[in-house]
C-alpha cells in the first residue's frame, strides 16, 4: 500500500506538514550538547603553533621554554606525529589527472599556507596550551610564494611541489557539439569576465573535536562536530592504524556546518593521534582566527565566458574557461577538484542548447586549502550562465524573462540529457517561472522601477534560473575510490510502551534533519511525531550511512526511514492480526492505535501490543514473527544525481553616489520534489539565500601578494546581517522524483545557488541605462563606483 500523498486528510498525514522540531526546545533552552560542552576525566587541551609564512622550510623547532610553562604536558612536532599517523593524498580516480602531494597532520619540513599547523602543545587547559604555544620557537626559511591563480602555470612562476612537476592540480575540458562553428554563425556573441571571491563558511560553532583513546579495550572514541561520522571513522582508522570497528565517532549537537565540517582537517587528525599517544582525552576547539585561516575556503574563481544567440534569442552555444586556486593541497578525501568540475557540469543547466565547451583549470597556491562549501560550484555556474543570458537579452533588446522562456527545457521534455551530459529526470523551469512572475507581480515591479527612475532612483530587477544537484549516487565519490557512502540506512523499532525509536545514518547539523525523520517515521508507522525519538550521529549505534552533504538527508535518509517505518508497521500489523484474529490487510495503525482500516474503529493501542510482545510473548502463537525492529537502506540507482530546479529574483536599489546596494525584496520558487516539512524547507531556502547574498555583496577573503591573510576576523570578513537582508518570499513547485516512494529531492543549497546571480543581474539592470556593468563579486560600493567610472585612480 502506498501513501496517498495527494490526500492531505489521509490518516497520519505528517509528511507535507510543518511539525514541531523535536530538538528545538533543547537548543533554545541552551541544553544542547556540543563538543565543547563535553568534559571527560583526565581530559587535556591542545593548541597549535601555526605557520606565519605562506611558504617556508622549517629548519628548527625549539620547545624547551614551552615545556616549562605550568600546565603544559607535552609538545609534538610534525616528525613526532608522522611516526603514529600516516599522511594522506586528496585525489579520486574518476577525476582523471588530479594530483596532490602527501599531507601530514602537522607540517613536516615545510609549511605551505599561513595557518598550517606546525607544532601541537598539549596542556591541562587551553589557556596554558596557548601560553606554551607562544613560547615555541620555529625557525623558518621562507620559500617563494605562489598566490595568483591566473599566473600559477606560467613558466616563471615557482613550482610549489617540485615532485609534481607543475602547479596544475586538475584540468578538465568538456566539449559537446561545434562551439566554434556556432559562435561564427551566431547573430550575437557576448563575452564577459566573471570573478567570485574566496569565501569561507563561518559556522556559528567552530570546528570541534574531542578524542579519547582507551588502550584497555583498544577503542578510540571521537566526539566530533562533523557532517559525516562514518567517513571520519574510516579516516581515523586508516591513518592511525586502527581497525575501523575500533573507532567510534559520536556527533551530538552541531552548530552549523554548510559543508565546512565534511572534510579532513590536519589539526583534527593530529588531535586524535595525540590522544592515542598520550592515552587520555584530548580536546581541540578552533577559535575564530583559526577558523578563518584553516576552515576550508571556497569559490575563488576567475572565468572568461561567451554565449552565442540567434536573432530570436535562442542560445546557440556557450564557452566557459574557469580557473580556480585551491591552496597547496587538494583536501582529503573529497578533493578540491569537485568545485571546478561542478562549474563544468552545471553551466547552462536550465537551457536546451546544443554546443557547449567548458574547461576548468585547478591550480596550487600558498593560501588556505579550498574545498566543498554549500552549493558547491553552483553560485559560480549560475552567475556565469545567468549573467550571460541577461547580457544577451540586453544586446537583443529582449526582456530577461522572455529570453529564459525561449530557452528553458520544456516541462514535458523529460527525461533529458544536457550538453554537459547531466541527466534530468523531471524539472519544472516554466512552471517555476510562471509562479515567480505571479508572486513578484513582475509587470507592476517593472512599472515601479520606471517610476523610481523618474525620481532619479536606480532600481533593478534580476532573475536567475538554476538547477541544483542533490541526492548523489556513488558517482560523486564512491566510484573514485573514496569510502564515502552514498547509501544510507535507518533502523526503526517499537519499544514496549508503543513509542518508536529511529536510528539514522544521516546527521543533524541544526538544519532540522531529526524533525524531518520524526515526521516521516510517524507517518510510516502510524504514530504521533512526538512518539518518535530520533538518534543520529553515532557510528556504533546507527546504520552505516553517508551523513549530511550534497542535500541528501531528506531524499536518501528520509526514504530509508520511510521504508524502515513501513516495514515496522507491517511487522506490528502481523502481530496485531494474530492477537485480534483479523486479517493484517484489514488493519491500519493510526495515532498509535491499531484500527480497522475501513472504519477507523480502535482495536488495540500499541502499548498493549508492546506489553504482550515483550512481557507475555507466551500468549502469542509459536513461530509468529515478533521482531518489532526493522532496518532499511536506500540508494539511488536510476540517476547519478536528482537534479532540482528553481528561479530567484532580486529587487534592489543602487545608490549611484555611494555605490551602496539596498536589497528591497527577494523571491525564490524552487522544486525540491516532495516537500516533507514546508517550514523547514522555506527556512533552508532563506538561509541559503542569505549565504548567497553574502557572496554577492559582502564576503571576500583577502590575501596580500605574500600570501598573508588580511581579514581573519568577524570585523573584517563581512557576513550578511539581519539588518541588510530583504524579505524573502518562497514558493514551491513539486515534481517528486520517481526513484523513491517519498519523492523528495534536496533543498539545502538552492538558495545559495541562485541568489548571487539574481543580485548581479539586478544591479546590472539598474546600472544598464548608465552604461555600467559589474561581474566581480562581491559587489562592493567601490566596485560599483568604479564600474560607473566615478572613481578611476
Amino acid at each position, binding site marked *: 500500500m502506498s501513501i496517498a500523498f495527494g490526500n492531505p486528510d489521509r490518516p497520519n498525514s505528517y509528511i507535507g506538514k510543518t511539525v514541531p522540531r523535536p530538538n528545538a526546545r533543547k537548543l533554545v533552552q541552551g541544553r544542547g550538547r556540543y563538543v565543547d560542552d563535553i568534559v571527560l576525566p583526565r581530559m587535556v587541551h591542545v593548541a597549535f603553533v601555526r605557520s606565519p609564512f605562506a611558504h617556508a622550510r622549517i629548519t628548527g623547532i625549539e620547545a624547551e621554554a614551552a615545556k616549562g610553562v605550568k600546565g603544559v604536558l607535552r609538545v609534538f612536532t610534525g616528525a613526532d606525529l608522522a611516526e603514529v599517523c600516516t599522511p594522506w593524498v586528496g585525489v579520486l580516480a574518476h577525476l582523471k589527472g588530479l594530483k596532490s602531494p602527501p599531507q601530514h597532520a602537522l607540517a613536516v619540513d615545510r609549511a605551505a599556507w599561513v595557518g598550517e599547523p606546525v607544532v601541537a602543545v598539549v596542556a591541562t*587547559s587551553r589557556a596554558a596550551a596557548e601560553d606554551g604555544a607562544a613560547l615555541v620557537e620555529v625557525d623558518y626559511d621562507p620559500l617563494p610564494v605562489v598566490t595568483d591563480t591566473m599566473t600559477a602555470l606560467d613558466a616563471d612562476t615557482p613550482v610549489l611541489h617540485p615532485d609534481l612537476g607543475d602547479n596544475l592540480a586538475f584540468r578538465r575540458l568538456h566539449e559537446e557539439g561545434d562551439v566554434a562553428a556556432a559562435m561564427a554563425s551566431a547573430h550575437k556573441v557576448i563575452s564577459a569576465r566573471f570573478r567570485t571571491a574566496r569565501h569561507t563558511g563561518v559556522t556559528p560553532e567552530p570546528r570541534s573535536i574531542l578524542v579519547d583513546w582507551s588502550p584497555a579495550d583498544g577503542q578510540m572514541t571521537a566526539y566530533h562536530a562533523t557532517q559525516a561520522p562514518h567517513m571520519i571513522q574510516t579516516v581515523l582508522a586508516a591513518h592511525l592504524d586502527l581497525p575501523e570497528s575500533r573507532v567510534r565517532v559520536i556527533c551530538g549537537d552541531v552548530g552549523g556546518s554548510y559543508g565546512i565540517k565534511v572534510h579532513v582537517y590536519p589539526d583534527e587528525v593530529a588531535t586524535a593521534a595525540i590522544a592515542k599517544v598520550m592515552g587520555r582525552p584530548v580536546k581541540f576547539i578552533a577559535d575564530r*582566527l583559526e577558523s578563518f585561516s584553516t576552515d576550508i575556503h571556497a569559490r575563488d574563481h576567475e572565468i572568461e565566458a561567451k554565449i552565442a544567440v540567434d536573432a530570436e534569442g535562442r542560445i546557440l552555444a556557450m564557452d566557459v574557461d574557469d580557473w580556480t586556486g585551491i591552496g597547496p593541497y587538494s583536501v582529503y578525501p573529497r578533493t578540491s577538484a569537485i568545485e571546478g568540475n561542478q562549474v563544468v557540469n552545471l553551466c547552462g543547466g536550465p537551457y536546451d542548447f546544443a554546443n557547449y565547451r567548458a574547461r576548468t583549470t585547478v591550480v596550487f597556491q600558498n593560501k588556505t586549502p579550498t574545498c566543498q562549501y554549500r552549493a558547491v560550484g553552483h553560485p559560480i555556474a549560475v552567475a556565469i550562465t545567468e549573467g550571460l543570458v541577461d547580457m544577451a537579452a540586453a544586446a537583443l533588446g529582449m526582456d530577461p524573462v522572455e529570453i529564459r522562456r525561449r530557452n528553458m527545457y520544456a516541462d514535458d521534455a523529460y527525461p533529458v540529457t544536457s550538453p554537459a551530459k547531466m541527466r534530468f529526470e523531471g524539472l519544472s523551469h516554466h512552471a517555476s517561472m510562471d509562479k515567480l512572475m505571479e508572486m513578484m507581480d513582475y509587470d507592476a515591479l517593472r512599472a515601479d522601477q520606471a517610476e523610481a527612475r523618474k525620481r532619479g532612483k536606480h532600481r533593478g530587477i534580476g532573475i536567475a534560473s538554476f538547477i541544483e544537484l542533490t541526492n548523489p549516487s556513488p558517482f560523486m565519490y564512491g566510484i573514485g575510490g573514496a569510502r564515502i557512502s552514498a547509501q544510507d540506512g535507518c533502523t526503526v523499532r517499537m519499544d514496549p510502551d508503543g513509542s518508536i525509536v529511529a536510528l539514522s545514518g544521516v546527521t543533524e547539523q541544526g538544519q532540522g534533519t531529526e524533525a524531518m525523520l520524526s515526521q516521516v517515521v510517524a507517518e510510516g508507522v502510524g504514530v504521533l511525531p512526538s512518539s518518535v525519538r530520533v538518534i543520529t550521529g553515532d557510528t556504533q549505534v546507527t546504520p552505516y550511512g553517508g551523513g549530511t552533504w550534497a542535500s541528501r538527508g531528506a531524499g536518501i535518509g528520509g526514504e530509508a526511514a520511510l521504508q524502515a517505518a513501513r516495514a515496522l508497521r507491517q511487522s506490528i500489523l502481523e502481530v496485531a492480526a494474530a492477537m485480534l484474529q483479523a486479517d493484517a490487510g484489514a488493519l491500519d495503525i493510526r495515532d498509535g492505535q491499531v484500527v480497522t482500516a475501513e472504519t477507523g474503529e480502535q482495536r488495540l493501542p500499541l502499548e498493549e501490543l508492546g506489553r504482550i510482545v515483550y512481557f507475555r510473548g507466551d500468549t502469542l502463537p509459536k513461530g509468529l514473527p515478533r521482531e518489532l525492529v526493522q532496518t532499511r537502506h536506500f540508494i539511488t540507482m536510476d540517476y547519478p544525481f536528482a537534479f532540482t530546479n528553481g528561479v530567484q529574483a532580486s529587487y534592489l536599489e543602487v545608490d549611484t553616489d*555611494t*555605490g551602496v546596494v539596498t536589497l528591497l525584496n527577494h523571491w525564490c520558487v524552487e522544486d525540491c520534489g516532495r516537500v516533507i516539512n514546508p517550514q523547514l524547507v522555506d527556512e533552508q531556502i532563506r538561509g541559503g539565500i542569505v549565504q548567497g547574498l553574502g557572496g554577492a555583496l*559582502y564576503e571576500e577573503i*583577502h590575501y596580500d601578494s605574500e600570501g598573508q591573510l588580511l581579514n581573519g*576576523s568577524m570585523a*573584517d570578513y563581512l557576513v550578511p*546581517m539581519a539588518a541588510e537582508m530583504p524579505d524573502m518570499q518562497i514558493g514551491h513547485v513539486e515534481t517528486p522524483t520517481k526513484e523513491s516512494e517519498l519523492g523528495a529531492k534536496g533543498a539545502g543549497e538552492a538558495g545559495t545557488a541562485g541568489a548571487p546571480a539574481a543580485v548581479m543581474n539586478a544591479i546590472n539592470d539598474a546600472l544598464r541605462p548608465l552604461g555600467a556593468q559589474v561581474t566581480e563579486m562581491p559587489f*562592493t560600493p567601490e566596485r560599483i563606483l568604479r564600474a560607473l567610472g566615478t572613481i578611476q585612480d
Partner: protein
Amino acid sequence: MKASAGGYARAVDVPHALELMAGSAGAGRYLAGGQSLVAALNMRLSEGDMLIDISRIADLSGIREDGDHLRIGALTRHADIGRDALIRTHAPLLSDAVRHIAHAAIRNRGTIGGALAHADPAAEFPACALALGATLHAQGGTGTRDIAAEEFFEDVFTTTLAEGEILTGLSVPKAEAGEVQVIEEVARRSGDYALTGLCLVRRAAGHRLSIFSAGPVPMLARGAMAALDAGDLDAAVEALRAEIDPPSDTQASGSYRRHLAGVLLRRAVKRIEGDRA
C-alpha cells in the same frame, strides 16, 4: 584564543584608580565598558595587563547641565546617551551618532569616555567631540586638567592623555538657537565602522566640520569649513577632498573614501539647508 590578563582590581573612586595605576609598574590598563579592550585581550593583542576596573565609579557616569554646557561623565554608556533628553535637546549630534555605533549589546556596555580615550579613527564620538568643540576633562596624579578636543587626538589609538591619566568626562556647548548638527556616514553593514563619515555643525559663528575614518585621527576640515562659511559648497567639497589623505584597506581604497567624503558633505549640507527651509 584565551585572554592572558596579568590581574584585575576594581577601583572604588578616581583616586583609588590612580593609586592602582601608580602601583602597577606600567602594566595597568583602565577597563571601562571593555568593548575594545576585552576584544584585544581575547586575541592576545595585549597580554599581561593589570586591569583596573573603573566601571563602577558612580561619579563618572551621567549627564547634567553646567551653565551653557552639558557635562557628560566618561562612563556614560552609548545607549544612555542615545536616549537622554538633555542630549537630544542640547547636543542632538550625539543622539544621532549613537544610531551608527555598532550593535545594541555593544551600545549597552561601551562608554563615551572609552570611545574617546581609545581614539579609534573610525569611531563616531571622537568626531562628534571635535565638531561640537567639546572640552575633555582628565584627572591624573598631579590633579585635573581640561583638554580641547582639537588637542586630544594625536594618532591612531593615541591621545594626549598622560600615562596613567583618567578621562573623567567631557563638556559640550549647548546648541544655540538655530544651530544645526548632522552626522552622515556610510558603512558596509549597519553597525560596522564607517568607511568614511562626517559631522557638520552650523552655528552663528560659522560651520564646524569633522571627518572620521579618513585618516589616522578624526580631524576638523578647516578649509572646507571656511568655504562653507563663504557659502561655496563646491569649493568646500574640493577643499575637503584635498585636506584628507584616507587610507586603503580591505573594505575600500583611499580614493573611494575621498570620493565618499565629498558625497557625504553634499548630503550633510542638503540636510542642514533643509532644516533652515
